[in-house]
Protein backbone atom coordinates (compact mmCIF):
# COMPACT_ATOMS: atom_id res chain seq x y z
CA UNK A 1 0.00 0.00 0.00
CA UNK A 2 1.29 3.41 -0.94
CA UNK A 3 -0.11 6.68 0.43
CA UNK A 4 0.54 9.83 -1.57
CA UNK A 5 -0.33 13.30 -0.32
CA UNK A 6 -1.18 16.13 -2.68
CA UNK A 7 -2.98 19.43 -2.84
CA UNK A 8 -6.77 19.06 -3.02
CA UNK A 9 -7.85 21.06 -6.08
CA UNK A 10 -11.41 19.85 -6.58
CA UNK A 11 -13.23 17.95 -3.85
CA UNK A 12 -14.56 14.47 -4.40
CA UNK A 13 -13.84 10.78 -4.08
CA UNK A 14 -13.20 8.13 -6.68
CA UNK A 15 -11.97 4.56 -6.67
CA UNK A 16 -10.66 2.48 -9.53
CA UNK A 17 -7.66 1.38 -11.55
CA UNK A 18 -4.85 3.80 -12.33
CA UNK A 19 -4.71 4.96 -15.93
CA UNK A 20 -1.59 6.84 -16.89
CA UNK A 21 -2.11 9.43 -19.61
CA UNK A 22 0.08 11.62 -21.72
CA UNK A 23 3.66 11.84 -22.77
CA UNK A 24 4.86 12.98 -19.40
CA UNK A 25 7.37 10.26 -18.81
CA UNK A 26 8.16 9.00 -22.24
CA UNK A 27 11.40 7.14 -22.12
CA UNK A 28 13.67 8.07 -24.97
CA UNK A 29 14.04 5.26 -27.50
CA UNK A 30 17.23 3.31 -27.51
CA UNK A 31 18.95 3.31 -30.87
CA UNK A 32 19.84 -0.19 -31.96
CA UNK A 33 20.06 -0.06 -35.73
CA UNK A 34 19.02 2.31 -38.48
CA UNK A 35 16.75 -0.38 -39.93
CA UNK A 36 14.99 -0.92 -36.63
CA UNK A 37 14.53 2.80 -36.04
CA UNK A 38 13.23 3.38 -39.56
CA UNK A 39 10.78 0.49 -39.17
CA UNK A 40 9.61 1.95 -35.87
CA UNK A 41 9.26 5.37 -37.46
CA UNK A 42 7.13 3.93 -40.28
CA UNK A 43 4.86 2.20 -37.79
CA UNK A 44 4.54 5.44 -35.82
CA UNK A 45 3.70 7.49 -38.88
CA UNK A 46 1.15 4.94 -40.06
CA UNK A 47 -0.54 4.80 -36.66
CA UNK A 48 -0.85 8.58 -36.64
CA UNK A 49 -2.22 8.52 -40.19
CA UNK A 50 -4.89 6.02 -39.26
CA UNK A 51 -5.90 7.97 -36.19
CA UNK A 52 -6.12 11.21 -38.17
CA UNK A 53 -8.16 9.60 -40.95
CA UNK A 54 -10.60 8.26 -38.35
CA UNK A 55 -10.87 11.66 -36.70
CA UNK A 56 -11.50 13.31 -40.05
CA UNK A 57 -14.46 11.06 -40.74
CA UNK A 58 -16.14 12.12 -37.53
CA UNK A 59 -15.52 15.81 -38.19
CA UNK A 60 -18.46 17.81 -39.47
CA UNK A 61 -16.73 21.18 -39.53
CA UNK A 62 -15.01 21.59 -42.90
CA UNK A 63 -12.38 23.97 -41.58
CA UNK A 64 -11.42 21.62 -38.74
CA UNK A 65 -11.34 18.70 -41.17
CA UNK A 66 -9.08 20.81 -43.39
CA UNK A 67 -6.57 21.15 -40.57
CA UNK A 68 -6.56 17.38 -40.11
CA UNK A 69 -6.09 16.91 -43.85
CA UNK A 70 -3.11 19.26 -43.59
CA UNK A 71 -1.60 17.16 -40.78
CA UNK A 72 -2.27 13.99 -42.74
CA UNK A 73 -0.59 15.43 -45.84
CA UNK A 74 2.46 16.39 -43.79
CA UNK A 75 2.97 12.77 -42.75
CA UNK A 76 3.29 11.77 -46.40
CA UNK A 77 5.43 14.68 -47.51
CA UNK A 78 8.92 13.92 -48.83
CA UNK A 79 10.08 17.17 -47.31
CA UNK A 80 9.47 15.56 -43.95
CA UNK A 81 10.14 11.89 -44.56
CA UNK A 82 13.42 12.48 -46.41
CA UNK A 83 15.27 14.46 -43.71
CA UNK A 84 13.76 12.08 -41.17
CA UNK A 85 15.21 9.03 -42.91
CA UNK A 86 18.56 10.76 -43.36
CA UNK A 87 18.75 11.65 -39.69
CA UNK A 88 17.84 8.08 -38.66
CA UNK A 89 20.45 6.67 -41.05
CA UNK A 90 22.95 8.99 -39.37
CA UNK A 91 22.39 7.29 -36.05
CA UNK A 92 19.58 9.29 -34.46
CA UNK A 93 16.72 7.48 -32.72
CA UNK A 94 13.32 7.76 -34.42
CA UNK A 95 11.73 9.89 -31.67
CA UNK A 96 14.60 12.37 -31.52
CA UNK A 97 14.76 12.63 -35.30
CA UNK A 98 11.02 13.21 -35.59
CA UNK A 99 11.00 15.87 -32.87
CA UNK A 100 13.89 17.71 -34.51
CA UNK A 101 12.20 17.81 -37.93
CA UNK A 102 8.90 18.98 -36.43
CA UNK A 103 10.48 21.51 -34.10
CA UNK A 104 12.13 23.23 -37.05
CA UNK A 105 8.81 23.42 -38.85
CA UNK A 106 7.00 24.65 -35.73
CA UNK A 107 9.58 27.37 -35.18
CA UNK A 108 9.02 28.59 -38.74
CA UNK A 109 5.25 28.87 -38.18
CA UNK A 110 5.61 30.47 -34.77
CA UNK A 111 7.33 33.45 -36.31
CA UNK A 112 4.89 33.86 -39.23
CA UNK A 113 3.55 37.35 -39.71
CA UNK A 114 0.02 36.23 -40.50
CA UNK A 115 -1.96 35.15 -37.41
CA UNK A 116 -3.54 32.26 -39.30
CA UNK A 117 -0.21 30.68 -40.08
CA UNK A 118 1.10 31.45 -36.61
CA UNK A 119 -1.83 29.55 -35.16
CA UNK A 120 -0.88 26.48 -37.21
CA UNK A 121 2.18 26.03 -34.97
CA UNK A 122 -0.18 24.52 -32.40
CA UNK A 123 -1.52 22.03 -34.99
CA UNK A 124 2.02 21.03 -35.83
CA UNK A 125 2.85 20.56 -32.16
CA UNK A 126 -0.25 18.39 -31.90
CA UNK A 127 0.99 16.27 -34.76
CA UNK A 128 4.44 16.00 -33.20
CA UNK A 129 2.89 14.70 -29.96
CA UNK A 130 0.56 12.33 -31.80
CA UNK A 131 3.44 10.62 -33.58
CA UNK A 132 5.59 10.61 -30.43
CA UNK A 133 2.73 8.90 -28.61
CA UNK A 134 2.57 6.32 -31.38
CA UNK A 135 6.36 5.83 -31.25
CA UNK A 136 6.15 5.16 -27.54
CA UNK A 137 3.03 3.07 -27.73
CA UNK A 138 0.84 5.61 -25.85
CA UNK A 139 -2.31 5.92 -27.82
CA UNK A 140 -4.90 8.43 -26.70
CA UNK A 141 -6.67 5.93 -24.48
CA UNK A 142 -10.32 6.45 -23.82
CA UNK A 143 -10.85 6.76 -20.10
CA UNK A 144 -13.30 4.20 -18.76
CA UNK A 145 -15.76 5.35 -16.10
CA UNK A 146 -14.39 4.70 -12.62
CA UNK A 147 -10.71 5.33 -13.34
CA UNK A 148 -8.03 7.22 -11.49
CA UNK A 149 -6.23 9.13 -14.21
CA UNK A 150 -2.62 10.03 -13.45
CA UNK A 151 -0.79 12.54 -15.65
CA UNK A 152 2.00 15.03 -15.33
CA UNK A 153 -0.31 17.74 -16.60
CA UNK A 154 -3.64 17.65 -18.42
CA UNK A 155 -4.60 20.02 -21.23
CA UNK A 156 -7.95 21.77 -20.66
CA UNK A 157 -9.22 20.81 -24.15
CA UNK A 158 -8.66 17.14 -23.38
CA UNK A 159 -10.28 17.55 -19.98
CA UNK A 160 -13.43 18.90 -21.60
CA UNK A 161 -13.47 16.09 -24.15
CA UNK A 162 -13.23 13.36 -21.52
CA UNK A 163 -16.15 11.54 -19.95
CA UNK A 164 -15.34 11.76 -16.24
CA UNK A 165 -18.15 9.65 -14.84
CA UNK A 166 -17.01 8.17 -11.50
CA UNK A 167 -13.41 8.99 -12.36
CA UNK A 168 -10.85 11.22 -10.71
CA UNK A 169 -7.68 12.97 -11.82
CA UNK A 170 -4.26 13.15 -10.18
CA UNK A 171 -1.68 15.58 -11.54
CA UNK A 172 1.96 15.30 -10.67
CA UNK A 173 2.42 19.00 -11.31
CA UNK A 174 -0.05 21.85 -11.43
CA UNK A 175 -1.56 24.09 -8.78
CA UNK A 176 -5.00 24.29 -7.25
CA UNK A 177 -5.92 27.35 -9.29
CA UNK A 178 -4.71 26.25 -12.71
CA UNK A 179 -7.16 26.27 -15.58
CA UNK A 180 -7.80 22.54 -15.41
CA UNK A 181 -8.48 22.83 -11.66
CA UNK A 182 -11.17 25.42 -12.35
CA UNK A 183 -12.76 23.08 -14.88
CA UNK A 184 -12.57 20.13 -12.50
CA UNK A 185 -14.37 22.05 -9.77
CA UNK A 186 -17.08 23.22 -12.13
CA UNK A 187 -17.61 19.67 -13.38
CA UNK A 188 -17.36 18.08 -9.94
CA UNK A 189 -14.40 15.90 -10.94
CA UNK A 190 -12.17 14.98 -7.95
CA UNK A 191 -8.74 16.44 -8.57
CA UNK A 192 -5.51 16.14 -6.62
CA UNK A 193 -2.50 18.15 -7.81
CA UNK A 194 1.17 18.59 -7.05
CA UNK A 195 1.76 15.02 -5.90
CA UNK A 196 5.16 14.76 -7.55
CA UNK A 197 6.34 11.90 -9.68
CA UNK A 198 4.27 8.73 -9.17
CA UNK A 199 5.85 5.39 -9.98
CA UNK A 200 2.52 3.62 -10.02
CA UNK A 201 1.86 0.48 -11.93
CA UNK A 202 -0.67 0.90 -14.66
CA UNK A 203 -4.02 -0.59 -13.66
CA UNK A 204 -3.11 -0.80 -9.96
CA UNK A 205 -6.12 -0.26 -7.73
CA UNK A 206 -6.33 3.16 -6.14
CA UNK A 207 -8.50 5.32 -3.90
CA UNK A 208 -8.63 9.06 -4.44
CA UNK A 209 -9.94 11.30 -1.69
CA UNK A 210 -9.44 14.88 -2.78
CA UNK A 211 -11.28 16.23 0.28
CA UNK A 212 -8.35 15.07 2.36
CA UNK A 213 -5.74 15.37 -0.40
CA UNK A 214 -4.89 11.69 -0.38
CA UNK A 215 -4.24 9.04 -3.00
CA UNK A 216 -3.87 5.46 -1.80
CA UNK A 217 -2.43 2.93 -4.23
CA UNK A 218 -3.08 -0.77 -3.68
CA UNK A 219 -5.02 -0.12 -0.48
CA UNK A 220 -5.35 -2.74 2.22
CA UNK A 221 -8.69 -3.80 3.62
CA UNK A 222 -8.73 -1.21 6.41
CA UNK A 223 -7.92 1.67 4.06
CA UNK A 224 -10.69 0.58 1.74
CA UNK A 225 -13.22 0.43 4.57
CA UNK A 226 -12.23 3.85 5.87
CA UNK A 227 -12.54 5.23 2.34
CA UNK A 228 -16.03 3.80 1.86
CA UNK A 229 -17.09 5.22 5.21
CA UNK A 230 -15.89 8.69 4.29
CA UNK A 231 -17.45 8.40 0.87
CA UNK A 232 -20.88 7.59 2.25
CA UNK A 233 -20.59 10.39 4.82
CA UNK A 234 -19.72 12.92 2.12
CA UNK A 235 -22.58 11.60 -0.02
CA UNK A 236 -25.01 12.07 2.89
CA UNK A 237 -23.78 15.61 3.44
CA UNK A 238 -24.05 16.41 -0.25
CA UNK A 239 -27.59 15.04 -0.32
CA UNK A 240 -28.56 17.17 2.68
CA UNK A 241 -26.99 20.28 1.10
CA UNK A 242 -28.69 19.44 -2.15
CA UNK A 243 -32.10 19.31 -0.51
CA UNK A 244 -31.61 23.01 0.24
CA UNK A 245 -30.23 23.85 -3.18
CA UNK A 246 -33.28 25.69 -4.39
CA UNK A 247 -33.69 27.88 -1.29
CA UNK A 248 -32.12 31.32 -1.08
CA UNK A 249 -29.02 31.48 1.11
CA UNK A 250 -29.40 33.29 4.42
CA UNK A 251 -26.87 33.51 7.20
CA UNK A 252 -27.83 32.36 10.67
CA UNK A 253 -28.64 36.01 11.39
CA UNK A 254 -31.20 35.93 8.58
CA UNK A 255 -29.17 38.22 6.35
CA UNK A 256 -29.42 37.35 2.69
CA UNK A 257 -26.34 36.42 0.65
CA UNK A 258 -26.57 36.33 -3.13
CA UNK A 259 -25.05 33.16 -4.57
CA UNK A 260 -24.43 33.21 -8.28
CA UNK A 261 -22.60 30.83 -10.56
CA UNK A 262 -19.61 31.05 -12.87
CA UNK A 263 -20.15 29.85 -16.41
CA UNK A 264 -17.37 28.75 -18.74
CA UNK A 265 -19.55 27.40 -21.56
CA UNK A 266 -23.25 27.87 -22.36
CA UNK A 267 -23.70 24.09 -22.23
CA UNK A 268 -22.93 24.27 -18.51
CA UNK A 269 -26.35 25.79 -17.99
CA UNK A 270 -28.18 22.70 -19.21
CA UNK A 271 -27.52 20.98 -15.92
CA UNK A 272 -28.75 23.69 -13.63
CA UNK A 273 -32.08 25.28 -12.72
CA UNK A 274 -32.04 29.10 -12.97
CA UNK A 275 -34.32 29.24 -9.92
CA UNK A 276 -31.49 27.80 -7.82
CA UNK A 277 -29.19 30.77 -8.39
CA UNK A 278 -29.27 34.52 -7.88
CA UNK A 279 -27.72 35.13 -11.28
CA UNK A 280 -24.50 34.52 -13.13
CA UNK A 281 -21.61 36.37 -11.53
CA UNK A 282 -19.09 35.54 -14.22
CA UNK A 283 -19.41 34.36 -17.80
CA UNK A 284 -15.93 33.63 -19.15
CA UNK A 285 -16.36 34.69 -22.76
CA UNK A 286 -13.15 32.87 -23.75
CA UNK A 287 -15.25 29.82 -24.74
CA UNK A 288 -16.16 31.66 -27.94
CA UNK A 289 -12.53 32.17 -28.84
CA UNK A 290 -10.96 28.78 -28.12
CA UNK A 291 -10.22 25.95 -30.53
CA UNK A 292 -11.03 27.79 -33.66
CA UNK A 293 -9.41 29.21 -36.73
CA UNK A 294 -10.68 32.74 -36.68
CA UNK A 295 -12.18 35.11 -34.12
CA UNK A 296 -15.96 34.85 -33.68
CA UNK A 297 -18.14 37.40 -35.45
CA UNK A 298 -20.70 39.72 -33.88
CA UNK A 299 -23.72 37.57 -34.74
CA UNK A 300 -22.24 34.43 -33.27
CA UNK A 301 -21.26 36.24 -30.08
CA UNK A 302 -24.63 37.94 -29.82
CA UNK A 303 -26.46 34.62 -30.12
CA UNK A 304 -24.32 33.05 -27.40
CA UNK A 305 -24.69 35.96 -24.95
CA UNK A 306 -28.38 36.26 -25.69
CA UNK A 307 -28.92 32.57 -24.96
CA UNK A 308 -27.22 32.94 -21.56
CA UNK A 309 -29.07 36.18 -20.76
CA UNK A 310 -32.44 34.57 -21.56
CA UNK A 311 -31.62 31.52 -19.47
CA UNK A 312 -31.27 33.71 -16.37
CA UNK A 313 -34.84 35.06 -16.74
CA UNK A 314 -34.10 38.60 -15.65
CA UNK A 315 -31.47 37.73 -13.04
CA UNK A 316 -28.17 39.58 -13.48
CA UNK A 317 -25.72 38.05 -15.92
CA UNK A 318 -22.20 39.48 -15.71
CA UNK A 319 -20.24 38.79 -18.86
CA UNK A 320 -16.51 39.38 -18.79
CA UNK A 321 -14.87 40.71 -21.93
CA UNK A 322 -12.22 38.48 -23.46
CA UNK A 323 -9.63 37.62 -20.82
CA UNK A 324 -6.89 36.12 -22.96
CA UNK A 325 -3.23 35.79 -22.10
CA UNK A 326 -1.66 34.58 -18.87
CA UNK A 327 -2.60 30.90 -18.68
CA UNK A 328 -5.28 31.34 -21.35
CA UNK A 329 -3.48 31.76 -24.66
CA UNK A 330 -5.48 32.07 -27.87
CA UNK A 331 -3.37 31.09 -30.87
CA UNK A 332 -3.06 33.96 -33.31
CA UNK A 333 -4.41 36.51 -30.81
CA UNK A 334 -2.34 36.46 -27.66
CA UNK A 335 1.35 37.19 -27.91
CA UNK A 336 3.63 34.19 -28.18
CA UNK A 337 6.85 33.94 -26.26
CA UNK A 338 6.25 36.52 -23.52
CA UNK A 339 8.84 35.90 -20.83
CA UNK A 340 6.27 36.42 -18.09
CA UNK A 341 2.76 36.11 -19.52
CA UNK A 342 1.03 36.68 -16.17
CA UNK A 343 2.63 40.11 -16.02
CA UNK A 344 2.32 40.64 -19.74
CA UNK A 345 -0.16 41.83 -22.32
CA UNK A 346 -3.29 40.05 -21.10
CA UNK A 347 -6.92 40.84 -20.29
CA UNK A 348 -7.88 44.46 -20.96
CA UNK A 349 -4.30 45.29 -21.96
CA UNK A 350 -4.62 42.95 -24.93
CA UNK A 351 -8.16 44.10 -25.68
CA UNK A 352 -7.03 47.72 -25.89
CA UNK A 353 -4.28 46.68 -28.29
CA UNK A 354 -7.00 45.22 -30.48
CA UNK A 355 -9.90 47.71 -30.10
CA UNK A 356 -11.53 46.24 -33.23
CA UNK A 357 -11.94 42.89 -31.51
CA UNK A 358 -13.13 44.50 -28.27
CA UNK A 359 -15.61 46.77 -30.06
CA UNK A 360 -17.14 43.82 -31.85
CA UNK A 361 -17.58 42.01 -28.54
CA UNK A 362 -19.10 45.10 -26.90
CA UNK A 363 -21.57 45.45 -29.78
CA UNK A 364 -22.66 41.84 -29.29
CA UNK A 365 -22.95 42.40 -25.53
CA UNK A 366 -25.10 45.52 -25.70
CA UNK A 367 -27.36 43.80 -28.22
CA UNK A 368 -27.75 40.85 -25.83
CA UNK A 369 -28.69 43.41 -23.15
CA UNK A 370 -32.08 43.59 -24.84
CA UNK A 371 -32.70 39.93 -23.97
CA UNK A 372 -31.88 40.07 -20.26
CA UNK A 373 -30.09 41.75 -17.40
CA UNK A 374 -26.58 41.88 -18.88
CA UNK A 375 -23.66 43.53 -17.11
CA UNK A 376 -20.25 43.96 -18.70
CA UNK A 377 -17.08 43.34 -16.73
CA UNK A 378 -13.50 44.16 -17.71
CA UNK A 379 -10.59 41.93 -16.59
CA UNK A 380 -7.09 42.92 -15.42
CA UNK A 381 -7.77 46.64 -15.02
CA UNK A 382 -4.78 48.33 -13.35
CA UNK A 383 -5.38 52.08 -13.89
CA UNK A 384 -8.58 54.15 -14.34
CA UNK A 385 -7.63 55.05 -17.92
CA UNK A 386 -8.08 51.47 -19.08
CA UNK A 387 -11.64 51.29 -17.84
CA UNK A 388 -12.34 54.76 -19.24
CA UNK A 389 -11.19 53.68 -22.69
CA UNK A 390 -13.46 50.65 -22.57
CA UNK A 391 -16.34 52.91 -21.56
CA UNK A 392 -15.70 55.12 -24.59
CA UNK A 393 -15.82 52.06 -26.87
CA UNK A 394 -18.94 50.81 -25.10
CA UNK A 395 -20.73 54.15 -25.62
CA UNK A 396 -19.62 54.13 -29.25
CA UNK A 397 -21.01 50.63 -29.72
CA UNK A 398 -24.39 51.70 -28.35
CA UNK A 399 -24.44 54.83 -30.55
CA UNK A 400 -23.47 52.91 -33.67
CA UNK A 401 -26.17 50.32 -33.13
CA UNK A 402 -28.79 52.99 -32.51
CA UNK A 403 -27.77 54.66 -35.79
CA UNK A 404 -28.04 51.28 -37.51
CA UNK A 405 -31.50 50.86 -35.92
CA UNK A 406 -30.44 47.72 -34.11
CA UNK A 407 -31.82 47.32 -30.59
CA UNK A 408 -29.21 47.78 -27.86
CA UNK A 409 -29.15 48.51 -24.14
CA UNK A 410 -26.38 50.41 -22.41
CA UNK A 411 -25.30 48.03 -19.62
CA UNK A 412 -23.59 48.66 -16.27
CA UNK A 413 -19.82 48.53 -16.75
CA UNK A 414 -17.79 47.01 -13.96
CA UNK A 415 -14.30 45.76 -13.39
CA UNK A 416 -12.49 42.76 -12.04
CA UNK A 417 -10.39 43.68 -9.04
CA UNK A 418 -7.36 41.43 -9.37
CA UNK A 419 -4.40 43.78 -9.82
CA UNK A 420 -3.20 44.97 -6.38
CA UNK A 421 -2.78 48.55 -7.66
CA UNK A 422 -6.47 48.63 -8.58
CA UNK A 423 -7.51 47.00 -5.32
CA UNK A 424 -5.61 49.55 -3.24
CA UNK A 425 -6.99 52.60 -5.09
CA UNK A 426 -10.38 51.26 -6.02
CA UNK A 427 -12.13 54.63 -5.38
CA UNK A 428 -10.26 56.16 -8.35
CA UNK A 429 -12.09 53.95 -10.87
CA UNK A 430 -15.32 54.86 -12.60
CA UNK A 431 -16.82 51.39 -12.27
CA UNK A 432 -20.49 50.54 -11.76
CA UNK A 433 -19.60 47.38 -9.83
CA UNK A 434 -16.58 45.39 -8.69
CA UNK A 435 -15.89 41.71 -8.83
CA UNK A 436 -12.87 40.37 -7.01
CA UNK A 437 -10.83 37.88 -8.98
CA UNK A 438 -9.30 36.20 -5.96
CA UNK A 439 -7.08 33.81 -7.92
CA UNK A 440 -5.06 36.52 -9.62
CA UNK A 441 -5.33 39.00 -6.74
CA UNK A 442 -3.82 36.38 -4.44
CA UNK A 443 -1.00 35.41 -6.74
CA UNK A 444 -0.13 39.04 -7.41
CA UNK A 445 -0.33 40.04 -3.74
CA UNK A 446 1.82 37.11 -2.69
CA UNK A 447 4.10 37.11 -5.75
CA UNK A 448 3.50 33.35 -5.81
CA UNK A 449 2.51 31.55 -8.99
CA UNK A 450 -0.75 29.70 -8.74
CA UNK A 451 0.66 26.82 -10.75
CA UNK A 452 3.71 26.16 -8.62
CA UNK A 453 2.97 23.30 -6.22
CA UNK A 454 5.95 24.22 -4.04
CA UNK A 455 4.32 27.58 -3.32
CA UNK A 456 0.85 26.25 -2.57
CA UNK A 457 1.14 27.33 1.08
CA UNK A 458 2.02 30.90 0.04
CA UNK A 459 -0.74 31.28 -2.53
CA UNK A 460 -3.40 31.33 0.17
CA UNK A 461 -5.25 34.22 1.73
CA UNK A 462 -3.34 35.85 4.59
CA UNK A 463 -3.68 39.11 6.54
CA UNK A 464 -2.82 41.27 3.51
CA UNK A 465 -5.53 39.64 1.42
CA UNK A 466 -8.18 39.93 4.11
CA UNK A 467 -7.33 43.60 4.71
CA UNK A 468 -7.68 44.37 1.00
CA UNK A 469 -10.95 42.47 0.89
CA UNK A 470 -12.38 44.32 3.90
CA UNK A 471 -11.46 47.68 2.40
CA UNK A 472 -13.00 46.79 -0.95
CA UNK A 473 -16.24 45.75 0.73
CA UNK A 474 -16.28 48.92 2.82
CA UNK A 475 -15.80 51.06 -0.28
CA UNK A 476 -18.59 49.21 -2.06
CA UNK A 477 -20.88 49.74 0.91
CA UNK A 478 -20.13 53.49 1.11
CA UNK A 479 -20.41 54.12 -2.63
CA UNK A 480 -23.42 51.80 -2.95
CA UNK A 481 -21.74 49.68 -5.57
CA UNK A 482 -21.95 45.94 -5.59
CA UNK A 483 -18.81 44.04 -4.62
CA UNK A 484 -18.76 40.35 -5.41
CA UNK A 485 -16.09 37.66 -5.47
CA UNK A 486 -15.92 35.24 -8.37
CA UNK A 487 -12.61 33.48 -7.75
CA UNK A 488 -12.10 29.95 -6.48
CA UNK A 489 -12.16 31.11 -2.88
CA UNK A 490 -15.93 31.64 -3.12
CA UNK A 491 -16.39 27.96 -3.98
CA UNK A 492 -14.44 26.80 -0.94
CA UNK A 493 -16.95 26.06 1.83
CA UNK A 494 -14.20 26.43 4.44
CA UNK A 495 -13.46 30.01 3.34
CA UNK A 496 -17.10 31.17 3.50
CA UNK A 497 -17.10 32.35 7.15
CA UNK A 498 -14.05 34.58 6.57
CA UNK A 499 -15.47 35.95 3.31
CA UNK A 500 -18.73 36.88 5.01
CA UNK A 501 -16.87 38.42 7.97
CA UNK A 502 -15.01 40.65 5.52
CA UNK A 503 -18.32 42.10 4.41
CA UNK A 504 -18.99 40.18 1.19
CA UNK A 505 -22.64 39.50 0.47
CA UNK A 506 -22.41 38.40 -3.15
CA UNK A 507 -20.49 35.31 -4.23
CA UNK A 508 -20.14 33.67 -7.59
CA UNK A 509 -19.19 30.02 -7.38
CA UNK A 510 -18.46 26.93 -9.45
CA UNK A 511 -21.69 25.13 -10.22
CA UNK A 512 -20.60 21.96 -8.47
CA UNK A 513 -20.11 23.99 -5.26
CA UNK A 514 -23.48 25.72 -5.26
CA UNK A 515 -25.07 23.40 -2.68
CA UNK A 516 -22.06 23.26 -0.35
CA UNK A 517 -21.55 27.05 -0.43
CA UNK A 518 -25.20 27.72 0.35
CA UNK A 519 -24.97 25.23 3.23
CA UNK A 520 -21.82 26.93 4.54
CA UNK A 521 -23.58 30.32 4.44
CA UNK A 522 -26.49 28.95 6.44
CA UNK A 523 -24.08 27.69 9.09
CA UNK A 524 -22.22 31.03 9.25
Amino acid sequence: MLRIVGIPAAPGMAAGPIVRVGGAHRKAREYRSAAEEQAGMDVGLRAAQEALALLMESMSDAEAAGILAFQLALLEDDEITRPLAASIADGTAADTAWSAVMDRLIADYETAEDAYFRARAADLADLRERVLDALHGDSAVAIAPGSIVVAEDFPPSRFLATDWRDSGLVLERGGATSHVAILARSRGVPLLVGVGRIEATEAADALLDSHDGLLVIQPDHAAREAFELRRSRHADEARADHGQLGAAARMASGERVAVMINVARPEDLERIDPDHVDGIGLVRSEFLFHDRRELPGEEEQYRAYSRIAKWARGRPVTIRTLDAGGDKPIPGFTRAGETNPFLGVRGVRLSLERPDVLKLQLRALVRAGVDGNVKVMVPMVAVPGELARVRVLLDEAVRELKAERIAAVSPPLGMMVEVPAAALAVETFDADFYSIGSNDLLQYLMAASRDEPALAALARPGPAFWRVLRELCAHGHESRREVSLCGDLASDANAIPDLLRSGLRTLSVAQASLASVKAAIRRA
Partner: protein
Amino acid sequence: MSQNAQSTVVIEHEVGLHARPSVKLTQLAKRFAAKIEIATSPEGPWIDAKSIVKVMGSKTPRGALLHVRAEGDDAESAVESIVALVRRDFELAT
Protein backbone atom coordinates in the same frame (compact mmCIF):
# COMPACT_ATOMS: atom_id res chain seq x y z
CA MET B 1 6.97 13.41 -75.03
CA SER B 2 8.33 15.85 -72.48
CA GLN B 3 6.64 19.23 -72.35
CA ASN B 4 7.16 22.57 -70.67
CA ALA B 5 4.19 24.66 -69.61
CA GLN B 6 3.67 27.84 -67.61
CA SER B 7 0.77 30.05 -66.55
CA THR B 8 -0.32 32.54 -63.90
CA VAL B 9 -3.49 32.94 -61.85
CA VAL B 10 -4.63 35.23 -59.03
CA ILE B 11 -5.51 33.59 -55.71
CA GLU B 12 -9.04 34.75 -54.95
CA HIS B 13 -9.75 32.43 -52.06
CA GLU B 14 -10.86 34.56 -49.14
CA VAL B 15 -7.83 33.79 -47.03
CA GLY B 16 -5.06 32.77 -49.40
CA LEU B 17 -3.22 29.45 -49.39
CA HIS B 18 -4.56 28.21 -46.06
CA ALA B 19 -4.78 24.59 -44.99
CA ARG B 20 -7.73 23.47 -47.11
CA PRO B 21 -6.68 25.18 -50.37
CA SER B 22 -3.09 24.00 -49.90
CA VAL B 23 -4.14 20.40 -49.35
CA LYS B 24 -6.37 20.52 -52.45
CA LEU B 25 -3.57 21.95 -54.53
CA THR B 26 -0.97 19.37 -53.49
CA GLN B 27 -3.44 16.51 -53.90
CA LEU B 28 -4.16 17.61 -57.44
CA ALA B 29 -0.49 18.14 -58.27
CA LYS B 30 0.37 14.64 -57.13
CA ARG B 31 -1.95 13.16 -59.76
CA PHE B 32 0.46 14.28 -62.46
CA ALA B 33 3.78 12.76 -63.39
CA ALA B 34 5.25 16.13 -64.34
CA LYS B 35 7.43 18.11 -62.01
CA ILE B 36 5.16 21.02 -60.94
CA GLU B 37 6.34 24.16 -59.26
CA ILE B 38 4.65 27.32 -58.03
CA ALA B 39 5.93 30.77 -57.12
CA THR B 40 4.54 34.16 -56.20
CA SER B 41 7.08 35.95 -58.38
CA PRO B 42 8.48 34.94 -61.79
CA GLU B 43 11.98 35.17 -60.28
CA GLY B 44 10.99 32.53 -57.74
CA PRO B 45 11.67 31.00 -55.39
CA TRP B 46 9.93 28.14 -57.18
CA ILE B 47 8.57 25.54 -54.85
CA ASP B 48 7.39 21.96 -55.27
CA ALA B 49 3.59 22.02 -55.71
CA LYS B 50 3.38 18.42 -54.48
CA SER B 51 4.80 19.23 -51.06
CA ILE B 52 2.40 20.48 -48.38
CA VAL B 53 5.40 21.61 -46.33
CA LYS B 54 6.47 23.88 -49.18
CA VAL B 55 3.01 25.03 -50.32
CA MET B 56 1.69 25.88 -46.84
CA GLY B 57 5.15 27.11 -45.92
CA SER B 58 4.98 29.70 -48.70
CA LYS B 59 2.28 31.44 -46.60
CA THR B 60 0.80 32.96 -49.71
CA PRO B 61 -1.85 35.58 -48.95
CA ARG B 62 -5.07 36.31 -50.79
CA GLY B 63 -4.67 38.36 -53.93
CA ALA B 64 -1.20 37.01 -54.66
CA LEU B 65 -0.39 36.26 -58.26
CA LEU B 66 0.44 32.57 -58.45
CA HIS B 67 2.87 31.40 -61.13
CA VAL B 68 2.62 27.76 -62.09
CA ARG B 69 5.10 25.86 -64.24
CA ALA B 70 5.55 22.22 -65.06
CA GLU B 71 7.96 19.98 -66.86
CA GLY B 72 7.21 16.44 -67.99
CA ASP B 73 4.89 14.33 -70.08
CA ASP B 74 1.65 15.78 -68.79
CA ALA B 75 2.98 19.26 -68.04
CA GLU B 76 0.36 21.12 -70.03
CA SER B 77 -2.68 19.47 -68.52
CA ALA B 78 -1.06 19.75 -65.08
CA VAL B 79 -0.70 23.52 -65.33
CA GLU B 80 -4.18 23.82 -66.82
CA SER B 81 -5.75 21.77 -64.04
CA ILE B 82 -4.02 23.70 -61.29
CA VAL B 83 -4.94 27.07 -62.73
CA ALA B 84 -8.52 25.85 -63.09
CA LEU B 85 -8.58 24.71 -59.47
CA VAL B 86 -7.45 28.13 -58.26
CA ARG B 87 -10.03 29.80 -60.54
CA ARG B 88 -12.77 27.62 -59.08
CA ASP B 89 -11.71 28.92 -55.68
CA PHE B 90 -10.30 25.48 -54.80
CA GLU B 91 -13.81 24.05 -54.99
CA LEU B 92 -14.41 25.11 -51.43
CA ALA B 93 -17.83 26.32 -50.44
CA THR B 94 -16.51 28.91 -48.04
